[in-house]
């Protein structure tokens, strides 16, 4: 079983985590077209590669972001959403 590192609780087996889907930014619902919104809701980019994903550490109730390559299944880093902008800035 894979391991995943919760930024708060450390490295744990995958069984302690729940997958929360890809992290995606919604278009502005007030200004986007219906087609843009429908594409956001219904379409997913399936190309393998580096993705940001939501993961939930169940015993502690911690949501965080994991950057994972969906081709190699390698997780490069994990962090809380609040740290995302700081990390991206680096």
């Amino acid at each position, binding site marked *: 079983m894979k391991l995943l590192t919760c930024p*708060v609780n450390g490295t744990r087996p995958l069984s*302690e985590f729940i997958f929360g889907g890809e992290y995606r930014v919604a278009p502005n619902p007030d200004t986007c077209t219906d087609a843009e919104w429908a594409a956001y809701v219904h379409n997913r980019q399936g190309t393998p590669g580096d993705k940001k994903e939501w993961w939930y550490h169940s*015993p*502690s109730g*911690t949501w965080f972001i994991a950057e994972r390559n969906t081709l190699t299944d390698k997780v490069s880093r994990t962090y809380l959403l609040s740290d995302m902008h700081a990390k991206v800035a680096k």
Partner: protein
Amino acid sequence: MQLFDVTDVSTFARYGVKGPNAEKWLVGHGVKLPKSANSWVLHNNTLVLRLGSSEFVIEDQTGGVACTQLAEDSKRVTGVYKVPHADAAYLLAGSHATNILSELCELDLSEATLVDNTLGMTQVAGISATLLRQSLAGETIYRIWCDGTYGDYMRHILDEMTEEITA
């Protein structure tokens, strides 16, 4: 030393609190807090668990009074949220305790990893639980807490294992 012994300490008084101002509020009430996230401290017969960074569980051991005192202050304060607890809690002791827990839990229980005064929020027997190891009178013991509604289940598993070990 006995092989394995489970003490049900679910009836110990507990007081839970979380929120951005929880730490300040507890300090104001004279509770000695663990300094870092996911750690614990035992002081004046009161065990204080710090879950993550801003949630606390205070548990009075025999002779502890902190929970009673805290419960007297029912005033609601901004950024301080009371977390009611109806936990099932167990104290595991005996020479086989580590072996038994290593069947129930995937955490590395060795002293190098589960360092003194740290706690783990993990899964025990397939359910979410909080776990710590403690040296009590020279003996290694473990404490586990889980939601009280899982208590019958957890108790059943622990009883089954006690029976096997002592048979």
